[in-house]
């Protein structure tokens, strides 16, 4: 009889342990708690993280576009540099049309040559320039010719020539079509002696000079 009691007791113990494992059940309260934990985690931890990542992704896209733009600009710069080296003649023409200096003597020589080619007689060529303007030996312009910022400036002048009407017309045409841009602002033609006429032209010439001038 004692043996039967002990045997039954140990069997009962096993059953008790087995039933303990199988009998734990979640209550509604625990389910609610889980739902709250999930909601809190989602709204306060996960969602802000998602938003932050979305912002970072958008920033990455912007940066990629910016990098692409900067790269293409650098490539354009390099292509322009290569093109410049091939266009020496055109650059010479550009410098002739709009010089980077205001050497008045070059302008007067040009006008004298045009007058001589047209057959007119030069009466007078005068150009005004600012006093104390440096025409030569400017170290900054020589050493940093392209580094300085530049602005368009003009110099006004008068030219007085004498010739026949056809000569004057030819001279005027040559001025208009010269390599250097010369804009006539006012012309006056008056009868002189015999078949000759006098022509006075108010002229503007331009140059692209450093801003510190």
């Amino acid at each position, binding site marked *: 009889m004692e043996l039967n009691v002990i045997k039954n007791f140990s069997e009962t113990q096993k059953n008790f342990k087995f039933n303990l494992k199988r009998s734990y059940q979640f209550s509604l309260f625990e389910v609610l708690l889980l739902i709250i934990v999930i909601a809190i985690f989602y709204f306060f931890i996960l969602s802000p993280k998602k938003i932050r990542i979305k912002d970072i992704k958008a920033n*990455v896209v912007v940066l990629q576009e910016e*990098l692409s733009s900067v790269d293409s600009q650098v490539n354009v710069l390099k292509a322009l540099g290569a093109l410049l080296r091939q266009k020496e003649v055109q650059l010479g023409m550009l410098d002739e049309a709009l010089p980077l200096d205001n050497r008045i003597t070059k302008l007067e020589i040009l006008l004298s040559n045009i007058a001589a080619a047209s057959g007119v007689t030069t009466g007078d060529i005068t150009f005004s320039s600012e006093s104390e303007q440096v025409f030569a030996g400017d170290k900054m312009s020589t050493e940093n010719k392209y580094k300085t910022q530049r602005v368009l400036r003009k110099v006004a002048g008068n030219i007085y020539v004498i010739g026949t009407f056809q000569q004057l017309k030819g001279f005027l*045409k040559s001025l208009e079509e010269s390599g250097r841009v010369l804009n006539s602002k006012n*012309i006056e033609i008056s009868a002189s002696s015999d078949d000759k006429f006098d022509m006075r032209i108010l002229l503007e010439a331009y140059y692209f000079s450093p801003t510190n001038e």
Partner: protein
Amino acid sequence: MAQINLLKQENNSSKLWNLPGILAKILLLGLLLIVGYYAWLFISEKTLVKKTVSLEKQIQEAKIAGLEYKDRDIIFTRQTQLQELEKILTSHAYFSKIFSAISKVTLKSAVYTNLQANANGEVSLSVIVPSVSELDKFLQVFDAPKFNQNFSSVRVSSWAKVRTEDGINYKFEVKMQFNPEILKF
């Protein structure tokens, strides 16, 4: 002797329908998935931040490469030089064209002794004609629509008789407006 089972008997029917248990298991699984997703987001964020830093560095390097490019200053100077040239060329006037324009509105009997024109579209002429009727004809030309497109607002001042090689003539001063488009290329 019958054994007395002192343990509480299980209700077999509750095993079949344990709703809170099922829900809890589903929710636990969901929580695990969410935590896993968060871990993945955390790793993604680190990767993206690294990428951002790398891109910013590349952009800085590219900008420096552009600024230090040896021909940069020449290119910008030439570019602005060309732009300024284009601007002054738009106002470039071909005064030589005014002669042919004036000759089209001039009587054969009229002689010009003085011509003055400016870029504002004003022209002054000193004209000699044989008679007052020729002066009238000279002025009538500018009434025709064909000619007053280019020359208009003709004003005459101070006419007087003058003696020339051909005899007595009339000299007068004329001022008029001309279309500045005549002087364009």
